[in-house]
């Protein structure tokens, strides 16, 4: 199984950033999300982030909120997320991104076991800070899963140190103070944040929140080891009336972003 670090290192060796693509499991249906994730990998995503749809996504803007509502209304369960992971992990290193309560409810150790059994390699936890993560860190270490915590422009140096010590795989840098959603302007805070993270750790840094175009991906690829795209992909799918067009729109956007992380702008 390919690890997050080796995947990002391979991209670095090829002189580019890695492309990380996020899609919520169960959107628009479990089977539909499996096909979309597979399409995303074929079109050039290096690492897949499968979202666990949650009733109270405080870090997400309207696009991902709406997708989560659709997924939950369609009856998506935690166990379904692992099915999507399994299908994705066969093609590319795959992590889950989830708010914390569904993990506690599933059972922390059990969640780690199911994720590892499905071939997942790590977990991104947007509302879990290392200070509250003792049990998760133990469970993840037992299963060899990566623990991807977030840092933000507001993080102090002491917190950057603490968070990077608790992290593995890569560090997730939120480029702006805000929620997920495509933004027209690239963040001016992101390069500074990545510089500060690099001062305290050798871990690769992925930058997310707001990237939606090839140009933005290229800009972020200048200073980040991985470019994370979520809302823009969901938006591309949501804009299409039928599954075939949604697949095509997603594929086209990912191909474009893949050129961006290679800094191929023409």
């Amino acid at each position: 199984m390919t690890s997050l670090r080796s995947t990002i290192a391979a991209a670095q060796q090829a002189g580019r950033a890695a492309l990380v693509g996020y899609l919520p499991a169960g959107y628009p249906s479990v089977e539909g999300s499996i096909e979309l994730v597979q399409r995303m990998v074929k079109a050039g995503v290096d690492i897949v982030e499968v979202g666990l749809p949650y009733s109270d996504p405080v870090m997400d803007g309207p696009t991902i909120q709406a997708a989560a509502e659709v997924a939950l209304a369609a009856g998506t369960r935690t166990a379904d997320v692992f099915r999507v992971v399994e299908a994705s992990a066969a093609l590319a290193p795959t992590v889950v991104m989830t708010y914390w309560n569904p993990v506690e409810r599933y059972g922390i150790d059990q969640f780690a076991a199911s994720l590892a059994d499905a071939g997942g390699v790590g977990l991104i936890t947007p509302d879990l800070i290392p200070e509250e993560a003792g049990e998760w860190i133990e469970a993840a270490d037992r299963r060899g899963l990566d623990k991807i915590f977030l840092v933000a422009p507001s993080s102090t140096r002491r917190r950057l140190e603490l968070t990077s010590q608790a992290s593995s795989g890569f560090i997730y840098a939120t480029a702006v103070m805000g929620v997920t959603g495509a933004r027209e302007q690239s963040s001016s805070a992101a390069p500074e944040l990545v510089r500060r993270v690099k001062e305290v750790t050798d871990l690769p840094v992925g930058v997310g929140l707001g990237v939606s175009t090839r140009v933005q991906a290229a800009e972020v690829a200048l200073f980040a080891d991985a470019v994370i795209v979520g809302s823009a992909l969901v938006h591309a799918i949501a804009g299409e009336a039928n599954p075939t067009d949604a697949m095509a729109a997603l594929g086209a956007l990912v191909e474009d972003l893949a050129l961006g992380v290679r800094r191929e702008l023409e």
Partner: protein
Amino acid sequence: MPDAAGHFGRFGGRFMPEALIAPLDELEQHWRKAMADDEFVAQFNQLLREYAGLPSMLYEAERLSEAVGARVLLKREDLNHTGAHKIRNVLGQALLTTKMNKRRVIAETGAGQHGVATATACAYFDLDCVVYMGEVDMVRQALNVARMRMLGAEVIPVTSGSRTLKDAINEALRDWVTNVDDTHYMLGTAAGAHPFPAMVRDFTRGIGDEARAQTLELLGHLPAAALACVGGGSNAIGMFAGFIADESVRLYGFEAGGDGYETGRHASTITAGQIGVLHGTRSYLLQDEDGQTLESHSISAGLDYPGVGPEHAWLAETGRATYTSISDAQAMEAMALLARTEGIIPAIESAHALAGVPGVVADLGADVELLVCLSGRGDKDMDTAAKWFGLVDEADLVAEVKMK
């Protein structure tokens, strides 16, 4: 007291995006400094006294006492400015906001009570005020929407999720993470991430501290028990805080039972929920098998929340306080009883605490002195009460209006 990271036993803590951790640290520092600063405390007390009309009276309800077979002392928070205990918390947080040099305040509201209190404090301190309110609640509580706007607040309808209080909190958190540099999030109850539960308790504990002194003066000894309703838990923790160290005083919290907690349509988080994480804290909550938050149900909008403050979870687990579920019907009966025996119309929230009296009498025996937090007045609930009791015939009303 919680530990340094805001844990009450295994409850509490901080389950928040990293982006908000530094702002929460900053808030905690300011709050700790303020509570140790004589000048801040004096300013806060002066505001409570001269602006909010505190300390609230302790009133011995003799005819009610006769009816229930115990001596009932009411802590009259219903007489406070804006009509509920909530004014204590917002004045404390608004004063703190000015010390942090922030200009903008955001808040969530369900029934509109906390929204009105927040809008009031912001008008007083000349702060910009934005209140998030579920679209469903805005229709149910149109009068309070008008009150907030009258006070200069912007009320933003929340259309995501279940369009009620929990989604208003989500939306306020999204605003906060985006605008935290100049914005304070004025959370309306003793829940949420550390330091909110302890901070809100500090600002509302006047309820219990005043009541303790008043009871001692009136009776010469402490009451047998203190009773309060529990939504997120601010009036209850404010009352309990005055008595936690007094082991002889039993503490009783009353949760909203809706149609009866056995039916699944309720807001009895401690009675019938499970431990989990919601809105930044670990506590009891209403959730499904996958940890998705369930909608709560109560006739009382102020208690209609699927979570509860972490200190209550801890008081329940340690056995220091007892939590019981009160159905809509029981609460409405108690509301009518107080109105008829004492000429006081309580908020439906507070009526849940009154409805708990017979159970406590059964526990402790008759002729004990019970202190009940009358957290608010019922003016805001007259629509609901009119429908419940059939106080007005809608056809008659329409005819009356037409005649005019």
